[in-house]
């Protein structure tokens, strides 16, 4: 990881950029037609999902291959609370993240005994068990049809209001995660990523930190899932399928998995590309595959990581000359 040399000045530019983006996002429903508002909502919640994955992937160094389990589980929990339980949306919305966190905790406790790729493979197989259960349990989850037309309260039934709700929740979650990354807990997590052995030596309980981080990631993935229910009013078993998880994984990589906002950028690129390319051709997956290959070969630190490297070089080189 490269450290940002420029300090305060750079912080100010970052703040301005964030403010401009925030203003744009706030005014978006007034500027763009309805379809783009829906697309922006999907981008935001997918970005939240990718950021929650990056919390354990980029900052924790844990290869969580099947992150969408928690996303799907959160969405199903919310949807089932609304349709089968008949609870109010707010209770259902709370249930999504809680189920995500509980599932995240259970899977983490089982998988954390292993490390790196072995962890990932075990996690992907346990996640597939959840998928297969959802896929087969027709009477409860609706099987491969999923659940459609989930009722929403009047307050959230229009695209604009659900967009603002998504925007608000996403920003809130991102701020909480950012604070966590900068907290002592976040530093410990990054220490574990860089050198698990030494972290253990200085008294950090590696496994416990990883379990806590994975539970938190599961929680925020559950938030993203519940948001999907609010925006799209549907759930379907493909939300828990492993190929979606790997797509989210590559979103993190594309945006820059050592940067905080990288996954959000990656999600924006991939979701909007998917929307526009699939209007031209049915061979969208091929385009996606080619993009992924390009990223893997030429941008291993992602777009934001690349920009950060260039910026640091630009800032460091003049100072050396002086």
């Amino acid at each position, binding site marked *: 990881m490269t450290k940002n040399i420029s300090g305060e000045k750079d912080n100010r530019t970052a703040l301005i950029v964030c403010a401009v983006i925030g203003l744009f996002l706030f005014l978006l429903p007034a500027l763009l037609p309805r379809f783009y508002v829906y697309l922006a909502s999907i981008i935001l919640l997918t970005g939240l999902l990718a950021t929650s994955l990056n919390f354990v992937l980029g900052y924790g160094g844990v290869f969580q291959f099947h992150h969408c389990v928690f996303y799907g589980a959160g969405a199903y929990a919310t949807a089932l609370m609304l349709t089968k339980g008949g609870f109010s949306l707010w209770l259902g919305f709370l249930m999504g993240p809680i189920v995500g966190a509980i599932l995240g905790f259970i899977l983490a406790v089982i998988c954390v005994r*292993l490390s790196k*790729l*072995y962890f*990932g493979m075990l996690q992907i*197989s346990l996640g597939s*068990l959840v998928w297969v259960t959802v896929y087969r349990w027709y009477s409860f989850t609706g099987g491969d049809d999923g659940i459609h037309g989930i009722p929403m309260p009047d307050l959230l039934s229009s695209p604009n209001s659900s967009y603002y709700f998504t925007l608000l929740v996403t920003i809130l979650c991102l701020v909480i995660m950012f604070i966590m990354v900068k907290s002592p807990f976040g530093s410990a997590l990054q220490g574990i990523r860089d050198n698990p052995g030494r972290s253990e030596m200085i008294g950090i309980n590696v496994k416990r930190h990883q379990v806590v981080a994975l539970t938190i990631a599961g929680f925020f993935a559950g938030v993203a899932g519940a948001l999907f229910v609010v925006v799209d009013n549907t759930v379907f078993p493909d939300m828990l399928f492993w*190929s979606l998880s790997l797509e989210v994984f590559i979103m993190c990589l594309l945006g820059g998995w050592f940067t905080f906002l990288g996954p959000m950028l990656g999600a924006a690129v991939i979701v909007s590309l998917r929307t526009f390319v699939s209007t031209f051709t049915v061979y969208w997956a*091929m385009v996606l*595959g080619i993009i*992924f290959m390009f990223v893997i070969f030429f941008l291993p630190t992602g777009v934001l990581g690349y920009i950060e490297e260039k910026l640091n070089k630009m800032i460091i080189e003049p100072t050396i000359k002086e």
Partner: protein
Amino acid sequence: MEFIYAVIPPQILCQIFVGLSRTTILFIVASGLSLILGVLRIPNIAHGSLYMIGAFMSFTIAKAFGGGSLGFWMSLILTPMAVALLSLIIERCLFQFLYEREHLMLLLLTFASSLIFGDLVKLVWGAEYKSVPVPNLLQGFVPLFGGIPFPLYNLFLLIAGPVVAVALWLIVNKTKIGKISRAAAVDREMVGAVGINVSWVFASVFVIGCLLAGLGGALVAPTVSVTLGMDHTLIMEAFLIVIIGGLGNIWGALLGALIFGLSQSLGILIWPKFGIVFPYAAVIVVLLFRPTGLLKSTW
């Protein structure tokens, strides 16, 4: 035999063995996956796509030879070779440049190639179902288990599994390339230092593994309708088998396939609706007690 029939009725025994014959194909694919994992350390997600390509290719080859028995036997020989050639191309053009990098990148690269392969299959063969006829020689039934007719093709599959296992074991343990590849898995630099071209050793191991995926595809084609998306379910099952068996262990893959297949066919007998959940549950039970798999892993 009478004693066994008293415990398990012959009809059920027959059903279990038909289920196991399907598992044979899983084993053949999983053993290739395991080989690649053990030597190259690549969790090859594109393996499922190669299996699917194998199934589609065997459809084309069988049709080119008139769609009869000859077509099937030719496809059984030519399909694995064609898939092997394809895998050689992707290994030389893409994978070999990433061996020095983190294995995570290799995994994602195989995922990217599986996406591209999936669409290529759609482009070449279209989205319709395809079917390959069972050859005359293997059509019909044989009386087995107290006279219950057992489909001959499934019996053929049940024999093919162990044959592949023994052949693979002989290649890995008794031939020179097998010995070199095992050495390269342990210490790549040392093998290079004694004057062996490790890059080509890896390539040949990758090709042998992918050849098995193609063989699995050719064998499965007459029993199922060949369709898009058959790669996605298979690859996950093959991964589970490899994980419970121990990464890189061929006998582990056989054991894992047996556990997987038995729990699946017994599960369907006990609880038809949720039969598919049983093998996953079996995997979890195994992993709770032995997180690194039943047999010794080469990792």
